[in-house]
């Protein structure tokens, strides 16, 4: 057996352990997908399977055993263990510092004194297979989240591990990058004996995984074949997850109100290596009551568009109007009082000592009037008012972001890749937020690579590409448009339709 887990119990000092008596056996050649809702303990389990717990991170309670090819990981020297096990954490940032792409990939080999020619050859192969050659020489901290994740994966593959453990590897990847990831994992199977991946949405990685185990209420289910489980709607709902092959929800319809945002002829100072502006001659409007789904390839300019609207990146031409008033000369702060920003990682924009202070601050910057406790409770943060925002989990920080955006009273909210919406509970919170915003005559820009999420929740679709808006209109037409076809991405719900057919 490549990996065997026997009655593994892990706890962080609370009355109940997070994981209870987990049993698992992974034979050589097997590819296992572990799915569970946010907070179910997937990351903790992945760290324990990789040996990160207890070798690098420690927990209050560690009972049972994890053995790699018959050897308890506790007794394998750290360096030897991580030569045999490749690990990609849920937050790729936890494995990165200010090195170049090549440095990060070469790091595990250089540290083990591998000769230079071998290191170079391995780095070249990995960068070619993962299509990272365009990123050569770039410092990883300047890359997008999706690009960073691919670099960390390359580093995990560099020492040719026997077992690869990946924690939510598709986070932040556009559909094309997810496809490249699947291809890379298929190629890696020549070197890697076993693969374990934790994900919330199994559909993306179904091509590379054969088996499934579900994690809920602190226990891991028995391993079953993945393919038939994909159609078992009840199975996923019981685990608190959105079924991967659910059918399209009723699309939201809206009668747009007054114009809240107007962008005309926008050209950014920021240019690509070719000298072409990242965005040029871009026009965009957003009306009251709308949820605008914004999609586009990684690096297409979605973030630059958002930063341009907020005034965080300089523009060389064009106009921006907010609520009918010309806003291009406004400071970022003045614009931000009309536009609430909820980034993918809330850590970027938190700077108060308690969650309540964050909400109070948001309200003081805008026109919001609602009581802080009420807003926090609406987004599942009752009892957390005095908690330091940095002590909240990533999921709770996302909830705090929605609470702050609503409390601010800003007429527009920009929600960038809301990861909390990947399970049932999180999706319900996001829907609450959208309903409240739109019913109050406000509007939301929803930036996401999750096309099903956009299809479910948006009322209009915008596709950013080629320095401008490649498509702007209804969702149904958008998925059939030449601009979308040019991306080569699967249409949302295509697998469900194929399955139904």
């Amino acid at each position: 057996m490549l990996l065997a887990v026997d009655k593994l119990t892990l706890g962080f000092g609370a009355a109940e352990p997070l994981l209870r008596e987990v049993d698992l056996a992974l034979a050589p050649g097997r590819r296992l997908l572990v799915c569970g809702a946010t907070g179910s303990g997937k990351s903790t389990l992945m760290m324990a399977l990789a040996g990160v717990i207890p070798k690098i991170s420690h927990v209050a309670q560690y009972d049972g055993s994890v053995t790699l090819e018959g050897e308890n990981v506790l007794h394998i020297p750290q360096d030897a263990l991580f030569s045999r096990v490749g690990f990609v954490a849920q937050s790729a940032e936890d494995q990165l510092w200010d090195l170049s792409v090549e440095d990060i990939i070469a790091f595990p080999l250089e540290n083990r004194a591998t000769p230079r020619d071998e290191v170079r050859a391995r780095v070249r192969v990995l960068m070619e297979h993962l299509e990272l050659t365009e990123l050569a020489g770039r410092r990883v901290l300047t890359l997008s989240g999706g690009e960073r994740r691919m670099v960390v994966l390359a580093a995990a593959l560099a020492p040719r591990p026997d077992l690869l453990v990946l924690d939510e590897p598709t986070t932040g990847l556009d559909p094309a990058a997810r496809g490249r990831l699947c291809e890379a994992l298929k190629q890696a199977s020549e070197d890697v004996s076993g693969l374990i991946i934790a994900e919330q949405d199994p559909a993306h990685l179904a091509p590379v995984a054969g088996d499934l185990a579900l994690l809920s209420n602190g226990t891991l289910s028995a391993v079953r074949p993945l393919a038939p489980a994909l159609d078992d709607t009840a199975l996923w709902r019981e685990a608190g997850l959105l079924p991967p092959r659910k059918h399209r929800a009723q699309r939201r319809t809206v009668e747009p109100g007054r114009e809240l945002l107007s962008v005309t002829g926008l050209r950014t100072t920021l240019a690509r290596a070719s000298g072409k502006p990242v965005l040029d001659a871009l026009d965009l409007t957003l009306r009251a009551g709308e949820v605008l789904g914004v999609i586009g390839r990684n690096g297409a300019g979605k973030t630059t568009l958002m930063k341009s609207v907020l005034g965080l990146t300089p523009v060389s031409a064009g106009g921006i109007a907010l609520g009918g008033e010309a806003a291009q000369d406004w400071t970022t702060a003045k614009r931000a009082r009309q536009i609430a920003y909820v980034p993918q990682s809330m850590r970027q924009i938190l700077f108060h000592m308690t969650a309540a202070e964050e909400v109070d601050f948001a309200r003081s910057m805008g026109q919001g009037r609602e009581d802080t406790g009420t807003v926090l409770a609406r987004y599942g943060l009752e009892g957390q008012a005095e908690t330091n925002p940095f002590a909240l989990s990533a999921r709770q920080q996302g909830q705090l972001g929605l609470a702050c955006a609503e409390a601010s009273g800003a007429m527009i909210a920009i929600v960038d890749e809301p990861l909390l919406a990947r399970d049932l509970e999180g999706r319900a919170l996001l829907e609450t937020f959208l309903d409240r915003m739109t019913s109050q005559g406000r509007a939301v820009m929803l930036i996401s690579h999750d096309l099903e999420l956009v299809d479910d929740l948006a009322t209009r679709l915008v596709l950013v590409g080629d320095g401008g808006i490649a498509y702007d209109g209804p969702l149904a037409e958008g998925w059939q448009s030449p601009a979308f076809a040019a991306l080569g991405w699967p249409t949302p719900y295509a697998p469900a339709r194929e399955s139904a057919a």
Partner: protein
Amino acid sequence: MTRLHDLNFFVKLAAAFALMTVAWLAPDWRFGFPFAALILLMLWATRVPKLGGYLKGAGLLTLMVIVSWMVNLLLQGVSAPDALAHAAKMAARLVATTALFYFVMETSPPGAILAACSAARLPAVVTLVLSLLFGIIPMLRDEFERIADAQRARGMEIDDVSLVRRLRFALARGVPLLVQAIRTAHAISFSLSLYGFELSRKRTTWREVGLMVEPRMTWKDMTR
């Protein structure tokens, strides 16, 4: 001129020490000031990143040094022209010194320092300390700027306000900066443990290292 950025870290460091020695041996301000100006000109010519920010800091440093030395010397009974000449000499030395090490710090990413140290077969602990010593300041500065952008994006007016308020808001960045510094330290420590870094083992490097340090891998010559 930007090829100078790719000079081996130790060559840059040696050159910086040599030029700094010249600056400190300057007999008076009439030599020291032009020499410091020449160093600043070199920074501009070699397109050192974020030079504007450095020049602001250097301007403030010059002012503070001149004022403090003037006050000190005047209190000791030195004549005003002599006190000014001495203060100017000290300011020129400090500007030249900080400018030289700013060049080394800004143009030597941690990866290039790691490579230079590894190629020199230095002990792993020296390699790590040098990389972090020169790498952490630009990292924290970038983080400080990112947090300022976050404050702006939350509606905090930090630009169009008085200097006092601007300083107050800058202090408010201390908490997230501290949190980020701890996270960075954790990420470095985690990656060192996960990727097999050991103090007892000398590292290798993927880069070609000589007088210059290869900045990136290229795909033109696949035979290398």
